[in-house]
């Protein structure tokens, strides 16, 4: 049986926790664990991974890999998978992971499972479909399998281990993509990460004018901030700075009220750390009710204005 190759990711000079989650996932699968780290000037990161469950860590260290590059990563992971004689390749489903992982699967003619949040004996991988409304069990065919693992789905491996590092040379000539720069988000308007109370509206709010008419008044009455789910921002109803979610702001307020939000994974990632979550949605099966503590299955246009009035009244 071939080994499991973990593709670690470096963020701000350290192996990110999602990579140690891959270690836990690999241990659940069972098998010889090897890893690859990719970047420039990364000996320290490779050592850290070798000591914390990474097993034999291949190090692809080259100035051409200083920033993510689709061709560079594809070549490096291919080389590492060959060197490790890997049957299974595990990659974190991050903006980098989902970018190159399909290329690896196609190149290896492997089974491919993306955004797995768990694995059962078989192996059978669990993932979500229909924007979180259904769970799916996927069984790979015999042979090689490439799996991207949902960040945060499984606890990171916290133990120590005796691993090793080995430099792996990769032919990096002919990289077609060219990294230009990274633009860091500039915060405009309200910093939702600092708000104690957030009232967020989703697609269920139905129209842009309903945000200032229905959602903002509740947020204001509570002394909190207004937020939104991704579809609202995509539709142009509110600017990006209101977006709560994995590609917007990740918030941890004392109270999060989700109005007309179904609860797609990308949104849940942005608010499930909230201290207390109330959800109002007309669909009793909306995934948001799984993370909320308190829920109302009903018409937000009836509930929210009444709630706003009641809050104002309570405050006197």
């Amino acid at each position, binding site marked *: 049986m071939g080994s499991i190759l973990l593709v670690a990711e470096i963020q701000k000079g350290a192996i990110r926790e999602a990579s140690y989650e891959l270690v836990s996932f690999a241990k659940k699968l069972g098998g010889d664990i090897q890893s690859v780290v990719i970047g420039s000037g990364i000996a320290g990161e490779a050592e850290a991974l070798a000591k914390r469950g990474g097993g034999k860590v291949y190090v692809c260290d080259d100035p051409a890999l200083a*920033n*993510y590059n*689709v*061709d560079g990563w594809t070549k490096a992971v291919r080389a590492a998978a060959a060197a490790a004689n890997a049957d299974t390749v595990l990659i974190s489903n991050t*903006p980098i992971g*989902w970018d*190159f*992982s*399909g*290329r690896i*699967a*196609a*190149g290896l*003619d492997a*089974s*491919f499972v993306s*955004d797995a949040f768990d694995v059962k004996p078989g192996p059978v991988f669990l993932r*979500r*479909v*229909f924007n979180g*409304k*259904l*769970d*799916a*069990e*996927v*069984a*790979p*065919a015999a042979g090689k399998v490439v799996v991207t693992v949902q960040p945060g789905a499984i606890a990171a491996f916290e133990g120590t281990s005796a691993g090793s590092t080995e430099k792996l040379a990769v032919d990096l000539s002919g990289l*077609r*993509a060219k*990294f*230009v720069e*990274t*633009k*860091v*988000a500039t915060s405009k308007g309200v910093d939702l990460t600092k708000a104690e109370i957030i009232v967020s509206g989703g697609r269920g709010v139905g129209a842009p004018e309903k945000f200032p008419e229905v959602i903002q008044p509740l947020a204001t009455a*509570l002394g909190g901030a207004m937020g939104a789910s*991704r579809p609202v*921002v995509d*539709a*142009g109803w509110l600017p990006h700075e209101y977006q709560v979610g994995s*590609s917007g*702001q*990740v918030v941890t307020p*004392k109270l999060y009220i989700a109005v007309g939000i179904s609860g797609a994974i990308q949104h849940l990632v942005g608010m499930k750390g909230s201290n207390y*979550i109330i*959800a109002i949605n007309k669909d*009793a099966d909306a*995934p948001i*009710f*799984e993370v*909320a*503590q*308190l*829920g*109302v299955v009903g018409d937000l246009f009836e509930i929210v204005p*009444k709630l706003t009035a*009641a809050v104002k009244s*309570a405050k006197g």
Partner: protein
Amino acid sequence: MKILVCLKQVPHQDARLDVNADGSWIKEDGIKFEINSYDTFALEEALRAKDADPATEVVVASIGPDRVTQALRTALGMGADRAVHVKDPAVDGSDALGVARVLATVAKEVGPELVLMGLMSDDSNASAVPPMLAELMGVPHATAVVTFEKTGSGVRVERELEGGALEVVDLPLPCLVAVQTGLNQVRYASLKGIMAAKKKPIDVKTAESLGLAGKVGAAAAKAKIRKVYPPPKGEGAEILSGSADEVVAKLVGKIKELGLL
């Protein structure tokens, strides 16, 4: 420039999702279908390129049964020039790699400089096909693109990272770009466009005509969905009952309890 836009027709976002008899997917009878939302943004981007340079040819392609014709007519009504419909039961049940193989073969025939498609589909949410298709086509690609512009030497895109950060990347042509939602504002087909669409060609292909007999479809699929089911309900939320006023009173009570009123 010739642009190929790959579209997937998916159950409507608000469609009722009932699991089918053997538990392997949802029941498709009686539900509405629509173009995958991510793909609509890709199509819009292609049509904007055509607005800017009318010499641009926009070819749309999709895989699936008869109902897919509607999706292709919609795309043609919005302004695409012609369509390719891979309609063949032998292709049904393909996994992502199978789909990528079909699209790669279509792309070889179409010969685009640019392939535009959505990052993922609203049903499988896999983000699998775009990178696989790029690999099979032997072209570079970028995913989760939120800004796209043509440059002298190719394209410059901004990829969405976590926390609102963006990565700016240059790609030469030919390349494949998989877009995020919200990249642009998607147009509606005009009445004039819908009428004109009736005359635009839809080229129907089969696995055999693409030389893919035996290489795609359920039998060739490596990653098989064994079953789907509603997520097991954990504790979940305490659902309040009663009239609107009663519910609101309970909510106010809870917010007071949290010390936030």
